[in-house]
């Protein structure tokens, strides 16, 4: 022994380790874990004393029996979601209108007048004020109020400890789909942000199940898509029923789309685990944390600063260049028509088969960097490219818009029907992830192939779903 040590090299060490591993057999990993547990138990027994009974724990257990029960678990989950959306839909309308009247009706003409006074060239004024400023104003007035209501509510649920219960409820479904139960957690994370959800898939050990979780995360409606869902549901679905029911029905529609997303997540997971990513689901333990009374003020503060302002800022950062692009495609003319009109006219016949329209397709191309700007882009394109005489004078000069009702007016003037609204909601659920998420998927998987699959699979599904919805709709009406 002593003689050889002086000539020891790293490879000798590794082969000694290999040799010893063979000699120890297969059970020594469990042996290691057991000795850790043994010591932990011994120390805990010495230092921890449970006085009387643990009343708090028993109370948590009682609540969990209801919330995670076989029969009530899912209905309670849907009711909670519906309540959150209803509060969002009902509460966002008025502040949204006030912001729009301030930023668009008051500030925009004022900026235009200022630009005219400075003798700014028409194209610069157009790019900056009608393009960049207006799309930013749209983002703020359409998105800020719903987000300022939705995120604090969602954060309160999170703080309370409800999310792991949701994961617990859905676990058996994911296992049946051949996916990892923890995918329920990454899916919940995706409701906040898909890029975060994709990173969260790191908690899954098996590469196969982790990949499934990454590919399907896009089916969780993210921050950027909630406002689209809420706004379109308010206009087109809420508009179908008497005003008293509008809020509830549109909240129900948004829940429906979110649940459909969970359904697609399960379906695609199942499909993948039965085909290219074949394998058994592995087991794991999920901790249900104690219910903690949420700290209301702190939650309000952090969710407003961290989530609302963060998402809004991201939307603005992307909306400004997008606004410029929108203005350019609507104002650069080739052969008498603007680029936008060329694209929209060329794609309209094809898009109508899917119950969508050219504006929506163009908007989704422009909005690849951020889902947040889909609605503003659609509105701008609709106003700029179709000759909406009453609302927009020519190419994107001033137009008046101060509430959801006026948004509805624009869309209806652009030829939108309830079918367009429904299909936009579906397509918003089922289309490519935003560029940040796509990049994150690439970074996490290091695979071009799976990045492409994650990008195009949802689009294909979205087009199929929209196609059938449109065809069935046309048959029925």
């Amino acid at each position: 022994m002593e003689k050889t040590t002086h000539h020891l090299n790293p490879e000798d060490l590794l082969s000694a380790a290999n040799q010893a591993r063979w000699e120890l057999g297969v059970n020594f990993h469990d042996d290691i874990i057991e000795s850790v547990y043994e010591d932990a138990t011994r120390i805990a027994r010495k230092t921890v004393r449970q006085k009387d009974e643990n009343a708090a724990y028993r109370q948590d257990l009682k609540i969990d029996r209801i919330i995670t029960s076989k029969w009530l678990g899912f209905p309670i989950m849907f009711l909670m979601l519906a309540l959150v959306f209803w509060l969002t839909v009902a509460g966002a309308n008025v502040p949204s209108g006030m912001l729009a009247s301030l930023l668009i009706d008051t500030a925009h003409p004022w900026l235009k007048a200022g630009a005219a006074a400075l003798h700014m060239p028409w194209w610069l004024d157009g790019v900056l004020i009608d393009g960049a400023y207006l799309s930013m104003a749209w983002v703020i007035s359409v998105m800020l109020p719903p987000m300022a209501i939705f995120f604090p509510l969602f954060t309160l649920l999170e703080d309370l400890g409800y999310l792991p219960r949701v994961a617990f409820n859905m676990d058996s479904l994911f296992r049946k789909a051949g996916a990892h139960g923890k995918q329920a957690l990454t899916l919940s994370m995706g409701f906040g942000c898909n890029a975060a959800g994709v990173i969260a898939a790191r908690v899954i050990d098996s590469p196969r199940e982790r990949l499934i979780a990454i590919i399907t995360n896009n089916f969780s409606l993210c921050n950027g898509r909630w406002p689209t869902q809420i706004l379109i549901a308010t206009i087109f679905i809420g508009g179908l029923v008497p005003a008293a029911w509008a809020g509830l029905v549109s909240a129900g529609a948004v829940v429906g789309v979110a649940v459909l997303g969970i359904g697609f997540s399960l379906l695609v997971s199942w499909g993948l685990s039965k085909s290219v990513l074949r394998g058994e689901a592995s087991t794991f333990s999920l901790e249900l944390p104690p219910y903690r009374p949420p700290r209301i003020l702190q939650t309000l503060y952090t969710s407003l600063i961290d989530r609302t302002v963060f998402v809004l800022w991201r939307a603005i950062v992307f909306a400004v260049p997008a606004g410029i692009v929108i203005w350019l495609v609507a104002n650069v003319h080739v052969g008498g028509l603007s680029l936008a009109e060329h694209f929209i006219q060329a794609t309209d016949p094809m898009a109508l088969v899917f119950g969508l329209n050219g504006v929506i397709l163009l908007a989704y191309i422009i909005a690849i960097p951020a889902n947040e700007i889909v609605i503003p882009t659609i509105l701008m394109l609709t106003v700029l490219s179709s000759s909406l005489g009453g609302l927009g004078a020519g190419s994107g000069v001033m137009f008046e818009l101060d509430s959801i009702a006026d948004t509805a007016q624009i869309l209806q003037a652009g030829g939108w029907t309830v079918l367009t609204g429904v299909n936009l909601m579906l397509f918003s659920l089922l289309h490519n992830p935003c560029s940040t998420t796509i990049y994150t998927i690439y970074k996490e998987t290091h695979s071009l192939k799976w990045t492409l699959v994650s990008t195009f699979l949802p689009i294909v599904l979205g087009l199929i779903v929209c196609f059938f919805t449109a065809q069935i709709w046309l048959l029925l009406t």
Partner: protein
Amino acid sequence: MSTPNTCETCPVHHKANLQKLGLNLDNIDFVLALAGNPNTGKSTVFNNLTGLRQHTGNWPGKTVARAEGAYVYNDRRYKMVDLPGTYSLLSTSTDEEVARNFILFGQPDVTIIVADATRLERNLNLTLQILEITDRAVLCLNMMDETRRSNIEIDVRGLSKELGIPVIPASARRREGMDQLLAAVEEVASGTYVCRPHRIKSHSPKLNRAIANLASKLAVLYPDLPNAQWVALRLLEGDNSIMEAIRSGELGEIGTSVEPAQI
């Protein structure tokens, strides 16, 4: 509470000495790792000390990426690395590997282990595994406010004696215990407090022999390695990142460098 003056003269009362640096990571004196089970309030501790706003929430698994922040305490600059929350360091998942590799190769000056006091036994599993890797750690016994609600009593001094490291009771959500935590971290970082970490001995004789054999070889190859037993165990388990570190010579640098390693 009735004698506020005593509090202010106590050496622990250093709130004025804490300066949150957020993301300013220049000229760092000490590197800290922040480890713990998921959902123990790790991010809350991180936010309290650095002034950053890592997202917090009551569910396991929300921190999966590594976050860094910094603070100044008594004129010393500390960099804090918030590791993903894990239940153990023995499996192959990415989050456990990130945590394990940072504690080993990042050579933090102090590892702060955040534990949920209401679930101490389970949290001790990870604590003991961390103490196998590093001999400089502080246990932050978080959620002490909830132990009162749950009728749990913990012998903090006894626990500290068993583990051989400082144990600081805290309620990070209410910002309680942070001063004491800062002071304990300083003591361990500066060497005023010398940890005598608990090491696991109750393996089977066969395994113990195998560990001892490999550890003696490791001691010859890498005389500065502070945790040869643990590395030996990982080698027996076939840990790829350790084998890779032996081939590349990275393992030889552990324990020798004076500068905190920049990963």
